[in-house]
């Protein structure tokens, strides 16, 4: 079974904890300094979105492997209001600052795989993976 651990996101401090967990795991998988920073930034964005827009949620981090490849998977989930218009959120922002939308295309770019499932009133789950090349 793969290693998996998680951080509940309630406060801004939890964002830092999720980052720390992610960076440690990324290092253990064997990512270099820059990729560690990228993975940590992706976690940071996901956790901030939970903190800012859903109020609470969870970041799970899992080491994954497929054949000879190994990598890291991040699952961000919340029971918030859900994303109204996913298409819009995934569009490249007309402004780099603020809003839920700012983060998503960025996270997608920082990682290799990216999937959103969102239902109004039920919540949002974002799953994203980065492989070690």
């Amino acid at each position, binding site marked *: 079974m793969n290693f998996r651990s998680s951080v509940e996101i309630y406060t801004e401090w939890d*964002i830092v904890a999720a980052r720390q967990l992610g960076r440690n795991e990324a290092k253990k998988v064997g990512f270099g300094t820059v990729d560690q920073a990228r993975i940590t930034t992706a976690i*940071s964005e996901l956790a901030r979105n939970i903190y800012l827009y859903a109020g609470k949620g969870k970041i799970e981090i899992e080491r994954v492997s497929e054949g000879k490849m190994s990598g890291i998977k991040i699952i961000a989930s919340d029971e918030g209001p859900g994303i109204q218009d*996913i298409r819009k959120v995934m569009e490249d922002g*007309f402004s*780099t*600052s603020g809003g839920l939308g700012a983060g998503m295309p960025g996270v997608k770019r920082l990682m290799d795989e990216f999937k959103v499932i969102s239902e109004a009133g039920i919540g949002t789950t974002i799953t994203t993976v980065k492989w070690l090349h």
Partner: protein
Amino acid sequence: MPQVVGRQYKEILKQYLSSQSEEDLYVGQQFSRRFIEKDIAPEDVISIHKNALHDIVPDLRKEVWDSFDFLIEMMIHYGLTLREHQSLIRKQEAIQMEMDVATGVQDTLLKTKTPNLKGLDVGWISKPAKQMNGDYIYFLNHEHEAGVAVADVMGKGIPAALCMSMIKFGMDGLQDENTSPQNVLNIINRIVEKSVDNSMFISMFYGKFDARDSMFSYASAGHEPALYFNAKEQTFSELSAKGLLLGIKPNVVYEERKQKMEVNDFIVMMTDGVTETRTEDGFIDMKTIEKLLLEVSEKPAGAIAEHLYNELSKLQNYRLSDDFTVVIFKKEK
């Protein structure tokens, strides 16, 4: 401002150098976002970093400081690319505004008036998948008759808008002529054929309700069949008629057919954006549409159209893959 930024940066860096904590990196990264918002170029960041490090650990070998100067030089073109990005974003915003204006003008210019005919309840809905709609509805009203053209034109934007204008102005010119569905399609086909080359495809359905004998006559230029609901029998049947897409050949004679309507019967005309609704399990079938229509068959035409749109839109997760257009003619007492 840069001095304040420099002081703050130094504090965060100093903190990090003494703790190497994740928290300081988080604070630093949040800080860097504000740098970008304030148009601080990456070469400026290197310079700020160099000065901060110099204040914190002044007694380093000269190579370190020289290396930062080199790094600044390396960053200049990165900074330029970023500034180009700002200008592209502004350009993109201008294009967006232009599109908004265009949509408004298109709506005004190609507007049509829903018929108000005793004995007929007309409801319709037309939703674009992207910003511009490639489906077009045009009503042709006479004293005892209500006609409607439902068309799906190829492409979006200017090409689509021009095709629609061909249809509108073509039909405007028909006011005093024979407006039998067959004749309407024959004439519009000739206009389209004359104006566009063969690479433009337009499908069109023309239906006309005559209040005097409650007869619905129709013709189709390669368009989706309509659905006829028989209220007494509570059954559906397809209304299809043979005919080539518009503009392919100059002298097509379109087949015209008729359907007698009784009170509470209705006819649903639509584009392929309705029938080709794609869900995660593949395309829906006609039965799904019939089921949805049946659920609200006693409501007014507008409510039936609305219901169909809402439910089909939900089935595809609120993401239309094609423009969606429905027109409903319902016979009233």
